């Protein structure tokens, strides 16, 4: 009997292989990203600051809006542009709708298949037509809302450094609110099967996490980052706490927080700020006990899905009554800026240095998948050890490991933007 698993994980964005070596008593696991190197941090050097958000939004097709916004935040930070409150709120809404849309795709088209004995979307559509139908409706509603605010679904084009390029009229906002209203109704029903899922039990071996720390609200923009150990630091100091390393076997880097393996994402956000989730507290109560389990990322996502839609609807309703201040003048100057955002998969950091002509001279991007890649390895190890003790078959182990990795929703195309320095 072969005692090692080399499993290509499908139903994730990008190419991923998970290797589990069971020959030793101490199980070895590897999270091998096999996507092509694309060196975005190198590509943007020498480019004008106006081009950069548009280039880096091509890092990932799934969460392009998150990359776009983080990049815009970083450039605005470097140029000391103070955008208006309205723009800030609209940016947050854009991000939340994007999180909702990504969550729908991940939960109902990719991850839930592990628990319903389906291998692909078509099989699921045959066995659970109702579920797929409403998931598709919810997805298209989220896409419509994204299109109204961001211009396009993948790679947004309504925003430039300093503000929106088009005036978001009352009609547009009203239309978006209506769309989100429909979406909320669908989502409320749709998240039930996820909340009721019977997840495999697994104790998180490394329960450290890092999240963005907004003064109020959930998933809001902030300049501060907080760790599970209670340390709170400014975004510009991120390099003192979060260190990057080059993995020998993967095209992605890995990250450590104060030398410890950590995770980011919906589960981390919910662990830190579950009491701030207004409107969905009844569902939060259901999932709170389970949050120690890495598999419970799915449930955390379901909660966020509902919250994001409901909250975006609320914010937009409050905005549609008044004249929006959507553009701030930008003066080119030398500077350094860090943009942080809670992307669908967790904390995302963009960091640029500009010279006095607005040309990028240094760039660093740390994506959520890079941050939690070590945590996936640790969790996989702990899971396969546990399964081995229970004496399950290797195919079973492989399936469970795949399900665990998918629960993190790794995005490998995000992970491989890296440039190796020194």
């Amino acid at each position, binding site marked *: 009997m072969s005692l090692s698993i080399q499993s290509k994980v499908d139903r994730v964005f990008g190419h991923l292989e998970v290797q589990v070596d069971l020959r030793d008593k101490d199980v070895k696991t590897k999270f091998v990203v096999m996507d092509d190197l694309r060196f975005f941090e190198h590509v943007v050097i020498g480019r004008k600051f106006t081009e950069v958000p548009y280039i880096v939004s091509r890092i990932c097709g799934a969460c392009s809006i998150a990359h776009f916004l983080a990049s815009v935040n970083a450039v605005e930070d470097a140029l000391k542009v103070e955008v208006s409150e309205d723009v800030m709120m609209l940016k947050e809404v854009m991000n939340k709708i994007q999180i909702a849309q990504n969550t729908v795709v991940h939960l109902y*088209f990719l991850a839930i298949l592990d628990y319903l004995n389906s291998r692909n979307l078509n099989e699921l559509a045959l066995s659970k037509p109702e579920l797929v139908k409403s998931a598709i409706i919810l997805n298209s509603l989220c896409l419509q809302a994204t299109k109204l605010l961001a211009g396009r679904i993948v790679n947004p084009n309504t925003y430039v450094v300093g503000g929106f390029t088009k005036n978001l009229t009352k009609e547009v906002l009203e239309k978006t609110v209506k769309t989100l209203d429909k979406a909320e109704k669908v989502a409320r029903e749709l998240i039930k099967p996820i909340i009721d899922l019977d997840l495999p039990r697994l104790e998180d071996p490394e329960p450290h996490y890092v999240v963005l720390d907004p003064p109020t609200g959930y998933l809001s923009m902030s300049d501060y980052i907080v760790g599970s150990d209670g340390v709170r630091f400014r975004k510009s100091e991120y390099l003192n706490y979060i260190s990057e390393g080059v993995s020998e076997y993967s095209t992605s880097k890995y990250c450590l927080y104060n030398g410890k393996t950590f995770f980011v994402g919906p589960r981390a956000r919910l662990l830190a700020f579950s009491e701030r989730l207004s409107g969905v507290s009844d569902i939060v109560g259901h999932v709170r006990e389970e949050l120690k389990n890495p598999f419970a990322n799915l449930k955390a996502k379901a909660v966020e899905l509902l919250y994001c839609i409901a909250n975006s609807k609320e914010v937009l309703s409050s905005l549609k009554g008044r004249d929006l201040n959507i553009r701030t003048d930008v003066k080119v100057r030398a500077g350094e800026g860090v943009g942080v955002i809670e992307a669908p998969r967790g904390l995302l950091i963009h960091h640029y240095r500009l010279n006095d002509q607005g040309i990028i001279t240094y760039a660093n991007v740390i994506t959520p998948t890079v941050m939690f890649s070590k945590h996936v390895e640790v969790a996989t190890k702990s899971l396969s050890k546990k399964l081995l003790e229970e004496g399950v078959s290797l195919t079973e182990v492989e399936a469970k490991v795949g399900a665990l990795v998918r629960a993190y929703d790794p995005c490998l195309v995000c992970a491989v933007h890296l440039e190796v320095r020194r």
Partner: protein
Amino acid sequence: MTNSKLVVGIYSFGGCDGCRHEILNLGDALLELLGKYNVTIAHEPLLGYVDEKEEYDVVFIEGSITSESEVKKLVELRSKSKVLVALGSCSFLGGVPALMKDLKEGVAKNLTNAPIGKLVNVVPIGKYVKVDYWLRGCPINNVEFLTLIKKLVEGKFFRQGERRFDFCRTSVVNVNGKLLNLDGEKCIVCGRCVSVCSNLGVNALGIINRGIDIAVSTPFQEPLDNTPCISCGLCAAYCPVGAINYMNNIQLIQDMLRRGEKLIAYLEYEALAALAESEEVHPGKLITAIKELGFDKVVLWTPLAEVRPSTDLSIVPMSYAEHKYITQFYPDLKKYLTQPPATRIPYRAVLITQCVSRKVYGDYVLTAREVQTMLRSLDITELEPTDPDHIYRPSIYGYLRAVGPYELRGVLEAVRRGIIKTGAIVTYICPNGCLMGGGQPYSRLPFEVCVECRENYYDKLLKTYLTL
């Protein structure tokens, strides 16, 4: 799945997966494809299909090819598949990954154990394999994807490249029979030819249809001879992919030189200035280089040497293009036109010019771009500069210059209204005159800088050679 109408594989290389995300976002329509249209998706890991088939009907390629192992994989997929489709800008044009072109192993050397092969420069996948269809955009428009698949299900196999330049599929397009060479397989429908043509006010080309049927064509797909085309050749000069090209005479001239025929190169001032700029060398070295190619003599020539304006008002066209432009759009001013120059070049002399339009007169015309190609075999910087054997000087001075379409139109209106009554008007239809004509060599510089640089060279040339 033997009854399936279409077996589809979607393969992703170095890209952002945005195009596949768009396909996933089709939702209902995607399920309809799988059900009603009986399409089998064999390979698309994002949707959970992981079969590797031996034979496909259609393979979609997303993302750029960045390593040697992927080139192999791509060639293998081509051999397995009846139809190969490039999905989105990354595969079709190189996309954002193509921006990392100056980056080699040096940066990636710490990753020796990573599962990547030797890196290659990112180029469009058309360089490696034959591509049947291109879905443009970053990301793709998923409705185009749907339309294409439905057409393929219905058995409507057509090659997209054949649709481009629909007006001239069978032969070379000509004004008089032998000027432009169009290759629809290369066309990316960027629209630069269309915009340069409409800037001139000629509008011989336009974009027709939408979606996967989009193409560059003439009005009503008439042959180019029946359109207002003035054969200026700017569409060829600005085509970024070489889909529009003028017929080149390199082979003809080279054969003649090899046979030892004594040819005299009539080199235009503007061509010399532009070549000096694009090759970044002293003009004298270029004259030596042209002699090295086998030309017996190099003579510096200008069309203005031949102009014999009448005492009355005369409009001097610098080439056939201006002549046709004025006869076509200002027929009432035809009586003032003089004959286009370059008709009196001696037999067996080769004209080296910036003007594609002069090609209409005969076979012994080389554009600066063709000369640039011929010079590739030589190391010009090592050569000693020499002076030309003879210099033709302009025969007229004190004339009015009308450069570019806007100035030209203004001056012609002034003539029409009787504001200008006497003197010679020398007309250039190309923006920035002959320096940026249709036969210009490839420059490394951005447009504005290139114009400025060539003008400097031109002024210097006039100062040096006209005072000799």
